[in-house]
């Protein structure tokens, strides 16, 4: 720090201005300033610059996020309710599967109803009517709306809700769990499990292992998790299976519900069959007393079905007998010469169904052919798009009103596009796998199923946050609820239009989903950290 050209350099003048010079130096500079207008000019300029910097740095040009100023209030915490709601959903599911559905099944056997709740809902309820245009709307909105209303109502009831809600949810689960949990026999195969012929399990049987073979009888339900499952014995309850190959050769008095690569059914099932499979085969000797609901890649039905058939399939070969209606959606339907369908047959697919001459049909097949990809020439296509926009907008509004702080946080998190997309890709593919693994840990069955439901809701919600983010980029950040709604509406409309672009539309859709999913997960993480600050 020296004099230059008879003046003090800028550093020295700045240190003088900021009172950082030692006393000796201070006196020297003061004396010089008194007689040097150039150095005084520099001092004033630097002083003005300091003030200029302070004003610029202190300016409150953008709003502080509301959650940052209000987060510490415990009553703003939603997580307790969300956890309680998840627990309650687990409890409701258990109640439904443990009490309501069996009751309906008994009523069904007595002739009061037709099939179980699910098949009634799918086949004859109002839910099914108008399915074409309302499908997406109905897939997500009821669950999300009910959940949101539930959370909102409960929030209004108790101010200090977290412990109460948690206990309430836990109690509900505890009440719902015991009937199935108390009377159960559990086996982990090492590595495989076999119930030998002649042996009998008097309760429900839950088994997991590399290979599971059931040659004996099970008085209750059979729940299996295994790559290879063979059931030759008599199951007096339901079969619930998760695995790769599941073969049922023994009689089943209840229902069969499976999630697997391949299901082969060669025996009698007194009630209903529901399958999510790569391939489903109903052998010639197989008979199903109730209905069949299947989501399957390829299927062959050679046996006898007493009730209705609902199939979402790639290919379906129908050679057996069907006592009720057939409602088939898929790529190809082949009705063989030995087939007999006593009710109405509807087919919606890409190719004309093949019907052999010998096939006996109560009425001609009602065929609706659809072209691959969207039909841009039809008004219905655009009306459908408007409906989908409306559904997502309503759902977005719910989120916006119920969780405004979290909503803003999730939208802000979407700025981290790279991290969000990476995390979203991971979650999109890993979550179902983890949920199935959680299901295998027997206690976690309810948790796993609830997890999958939450996953489905999260995938739908993902677009909401990306739409709002996009709206923010287009319209800027305006304070208040009005601009927030406008951003949501505009953003969703743009997203919907982008999804309709030929060829690249689905890629956009996938991108928005993974991006939003990642942003949602990151926002949850950030919120939990905030809550840790608030509640610590």
């Amino acid at each position, binding site marked *: *720090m*020296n004099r*230059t*050209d008879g*003046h*003090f*350099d*800028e*550093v020295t003048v*700045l*240190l003088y201005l*900021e009172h*950082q010079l030692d006393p000796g130096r201070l006196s020297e500079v003061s004396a010089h300033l008194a007689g040097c207008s*150039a*150095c005084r*000019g*520099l001092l*004033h*300029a*630097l002083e*003005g*610059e*300091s003030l*200029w*910097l*302070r*004003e*610029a*740095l*202190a*300016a*409150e*040009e*953008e709003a*502080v*996020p509301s959650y*940052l*100023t*209000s*987060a*510490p*209030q*415990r009553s703003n915490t939603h997580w307790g309710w969300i956890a309680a709601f998840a627990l309650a959903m687990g409890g409701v599911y258990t109640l439904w599967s443990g009490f309501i559905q069996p009751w309906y099944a008994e009523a069904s056997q007595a002739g009061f109803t037709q099939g179980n709740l699910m098949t009634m809902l799918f086949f004859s309820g109002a839910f099914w009517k108008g399915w074409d245009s309302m499908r997406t709307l109905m897939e997500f909105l009821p669950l999300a709306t009910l959940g949101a209303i539930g959370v909102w109502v409960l929030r209004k009831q108790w101010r200090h809700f977290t412990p109460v809600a948690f206990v309430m949810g836990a109690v509900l689960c505890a009440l719902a769990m015991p009937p199935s949990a108390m009377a159960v026999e559990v086996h982990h195969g090492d590595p495989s499990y076999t119930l030998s012929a002649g042996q009998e399990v008097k309760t429900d049987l839950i088994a997991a292992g590399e290979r599971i073979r059931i040659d004996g009888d099970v008085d209750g339900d059979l729940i299996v998790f295994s790559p290879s499952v063979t059931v030759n014995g008599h199951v007096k309850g339901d079969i619930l299976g998760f695995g790769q190959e599941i073969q049922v050769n023994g009689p089943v008095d209840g229902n069969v519900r499976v999630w697997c690569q391949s299901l082969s059914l060669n025996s009698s099932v007194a009630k209903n069959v529901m399958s999510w499979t790569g391939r489903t085969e109903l052998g010639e000797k197989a008979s199903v007393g109730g209905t069949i609901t299947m989501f399957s890649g390829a299927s062959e039905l050679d046996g006898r079905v007493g009730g209705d058939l609902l199939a979402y399939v790639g290919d379906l070969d129908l050679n057996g007998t069907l006592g009720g209606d057939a409602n088939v959606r898929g790529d190809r339907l082949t009705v063989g010469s030995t087939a007999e369908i006593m009710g109405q047959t509807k087919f919606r697919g890409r190719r004309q169904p093949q019907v052999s001459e010998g096939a006996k049909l109560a009425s001609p097949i009602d065929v609706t052919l659809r072209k691959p990809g969207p039909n841009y020439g039809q008004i219905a296509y655009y009306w459908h798009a408007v409906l989908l926009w409306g559904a997502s907008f309503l759902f977005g509004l719910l989120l916006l009103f119920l969780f405004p702080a979290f909503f803003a*946080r999730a939208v*802000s*998190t979407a*700025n*981290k596009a790279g991290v969000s997309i990476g995390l979203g890709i991971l979650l999109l593919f890993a979550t179902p796998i983890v949920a199935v693994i959680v299901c295998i840990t027997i206690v976690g069955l309810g948790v796993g199923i609830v997890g999958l439901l939450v996953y489905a809701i999260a995938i739908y919600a993902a677009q909401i946050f990306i739409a709002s983010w996009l709206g923010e980029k287009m319209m800027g950040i305006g304070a208040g609820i009005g601009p927030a709604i406008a951003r949501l509406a505009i953003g969703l409309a743009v997203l919907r239009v982008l999804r309709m672009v030929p060829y690249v539309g689905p890629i956009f859709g996938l991108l928005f989903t993974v991006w939003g999913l990642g942003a949602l997960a990151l926002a949850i993480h*950030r919120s939990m*950290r*905030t809550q*840790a*600050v*608030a*509640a*610590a």
Partner: protein
Amino acid sequence: MDERKTTGTMSEADLARLLSQVRAGDADAWGELYRQYAAAIFRFCRRVLPAREDAEDATTEIFMKVRQKLGTYDSSRPFTAWLYKVASNHCWDTLRRRRIRQDLETGDLDTLPLEHPDPSQIERLQAEHTSKEVRAGLAKLPDRARMALALRYYADMSYDEIADTLGVRRAFVGVLLLRARHQLRDALTQGGAFAALKASAGGKS
């Protein structure tokens, strides 16, 4: 009276009472403390970190640290000084972890010309640029320069505190601040002296 930025108008006595309540585990008092200072800390973070969401996260994390470390706070010193110390350490650590510090290391005084600039140029710059433009210019500065200016002119930190936070010798804080001012002037005039300075320093900055 400590003049550092806060959003509240709390007296020293009220603040002392509030802090003692927080230390005693009073959740409502903690909420009040948070509300008093969260906005100011968020703005500080917004000035020194590259993105808004980084500032939001940092604010949350800073208050987590404040909560944890409140027991170490010496009540004979201004609370805001301590709070900004925690905040600046956190932000500086964040930048350092990300390895996006691009500015010069300490002690390179030779890259700063010992000149006597024309005061009228500095004053014209002030007259020609709005606060918004200054903030946009600040965002273009290297992290340490931006951090130094925010610590000094937003958080009102002393040279000792700045030296401690940024890990430089106290004697270089003035140089650091002056260099930051030069960089800001050049950012606002798009090129000029700082660009020439970089060239003469062999592109070290």
